[in-house]
């Protein structure tokens, strides 16, 4: 492939430009080899694996519960989902029920995490386009969320909170009120954020009609989450393959709808994230109101030894379907854990979607897909 690329470059006088792996706008260590005719790209080929840490192989040597902290590092911007997906897969293998209260707590922390992740997502997108301020606003709000989650589970990024069979801690005294207070201040701040950047003419002009991905292509490339919904496919695991306590809540599934209907462009993906934060606020409020009393951890044997079988646990993470395919051979260690993450597919589409874009728009494309490196490489 690379050879073919080079040959073509020589014959057609194309320019080959390397971007990454250390580049501030690639969102982690990803490398893009851009073949361009001047400023217009023929394609940008992603080269990944610079953060391949072999998490799947490590899982094979660890008992089921001990692997949970490793899943934190699969998606460091929204580690709750990574915990949750794995816990769900193992619970399905074991065939155990999780107490209602634990499910509600899982939903609350997941949605808080979704807000935290999208804040970085939209902030970083604005930063890549050239507006630094929204990123700082995002970071500032994220600090408050980090404080809340730290009070709940003791860590800011790598939570190890959602365990197999339940969650590790109950709400400490007064956290409920703190979350509500945060939500009360967060909603006006979101309006302010919209005024600051979402309707900003420069951002709209920069994102609209850039890197259009139509619904068929999105499905074919296996895009998930906000990227898929930005292309107008109405699919959300929380609603369509309900898990945890999500059937109890009312929320909308946001679809990309720019000013002229769904296009699947960068702005649609941006706006989906902004709206999803507001939906998350709604879900958290409902979950706090309806938080049932009871246990936070199901009854588990001392040593987890699921019988032979395969389970697939998928959650709607901030970056879409985050699935764990866990294969058990009857021992206390998983035989194989396959992690299916949204960013993997989102990066694979870059080669297709970057055709004919300007080089400067590649940054917009990458940022709008909201990819993070460890989800691609694992």
């Amino acid at each position, binding site marked *: 492939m690379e050879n073919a690329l080079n040959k073509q470059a020589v014959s057609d006088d194309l320019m080959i430009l390397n971007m990454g792996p250390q580049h501030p706008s690639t969102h982690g260590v990803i490398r893009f080899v851009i073949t361009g005719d001047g400023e217009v790209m023929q394609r940008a080929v992603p080269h990944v694996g610079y953060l391949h840490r072999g998490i799947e192989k490590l899982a094979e040597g660890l008992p089921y519960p*001990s692997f949970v902290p490793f899943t934190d590092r699969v998606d460091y911007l929204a580690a709750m989902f990574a915990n949750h997906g794995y816990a769900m897969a193992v619970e399905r293998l074991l065939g155990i029920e999780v107490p209602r209260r634990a499910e509600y707590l899982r939903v609350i922390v997941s949605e808080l995490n979704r807000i935290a992740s999208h804040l970085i997502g939209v902030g970083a997108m604005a930063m890549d386009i050239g507006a630094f*301020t929204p990123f700082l606003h995002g970071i500032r709000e994220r600090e408050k969320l980090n404080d809340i989650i730290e009070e709940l589970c003791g*860590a800011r990024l790598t939570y190890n909170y959602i365990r197999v069979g339940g969650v590790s801690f109950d709400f*400490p005294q007064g956290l409920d009120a703190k979350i509500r207070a945060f939500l009360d201040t967060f909603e006006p701040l979101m309006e302010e954020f919209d005024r600051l950047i979402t309707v*900003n003419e420069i951002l709209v002009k920069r994102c609209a009609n850039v890197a259009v991905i139509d619904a068929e292509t999105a499905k074919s490339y296996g895009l998930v989450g906000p990227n898929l919904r930005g292309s107008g496919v109405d699919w959300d695991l929380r609603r369509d393959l309900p898990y945890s306590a999500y059937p109890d809540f009312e929320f909308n599934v946001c679809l990309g709808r720019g000013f002229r209907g769904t296009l699947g462009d960068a702005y649609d993906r941006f706006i989906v994230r902004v709206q999803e934060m507001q939906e998350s606020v709604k879900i958290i409020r409902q979950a706090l109101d309806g938080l049932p009393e009871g246990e936070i951890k199901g009854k588990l044997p001392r040593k987890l030894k699921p019988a032979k079988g395969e389970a697939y646990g998928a959650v709607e993470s901030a970056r879409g379907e985050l699935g764990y395919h866990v294969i058990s051979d009857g021992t206390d260690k998983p035989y194989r854990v396959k992690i299916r993450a949204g960013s993997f597919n989102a990066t694979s589409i870059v080669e297709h979607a970057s055709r004919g874009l300007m080089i400067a728009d590649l940054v917009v494309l990458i940022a709008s897909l909201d990819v993070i490196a460890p989800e691609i490489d694992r």
Partner: protein
Amino acid sequence: MGSVSTYFENVKNAAVTIFEGMAVTLSWMFRRPITIQYPDRTPEPVKDTLPDRFRGILEVHIPACTACSACARACPIDVILVETQKHPSGKGRLLMRFDIDISKCMYCGLCTEACPTGCLRHTPVFEATGRDIHNLVVHFVDGPVVPYKHKKGRPVPASPPPGDIVQALLKPWDAEYVAWSPGEFVERDAGGGDGEKGAASPGKVEGGATGSGSG
């Protein structure tokens, strides 16, 4: 005609949205900043503002440690080393070493959940930068000690406030690495390790351990 009006519409939009964005930014000038003046100008030390559950650097309260190695087994990445030996008198065991490699630790909290007496815990200490990575191995036992024997209905020896033990053991950040070697076993009174002795011994053990820390 249409294109001209679109043109001016765009110009107007650009001006209005930029003005709005700038207004938002400017309004933050008159709000309370959230910057904390770490390290010395915070109202109270950052360490004290951290929540109880904060998972900082690990510490062991040795007088309450039963040397059961549950923590070492629970650790997925072998950060904890607990070494025991037979007591010279042939009765019971001796805790020879209790080392934690804080440079490798991932602060997941699995070990503290496994600890039966709660002597292993996360502390609010987070500043442990060092020039030499070998200094980031914390030796909690200076010489062989008799492990604590837990009996039902007896309170576990009271421990100092979290963070004090490990703070004393952490070497200065620019210290040269000095190879660690275990001290001699000091025979205590018979029945050492029961409740009262356990509660009385922390001063002794800690004193010794601190000595090694500074040396």
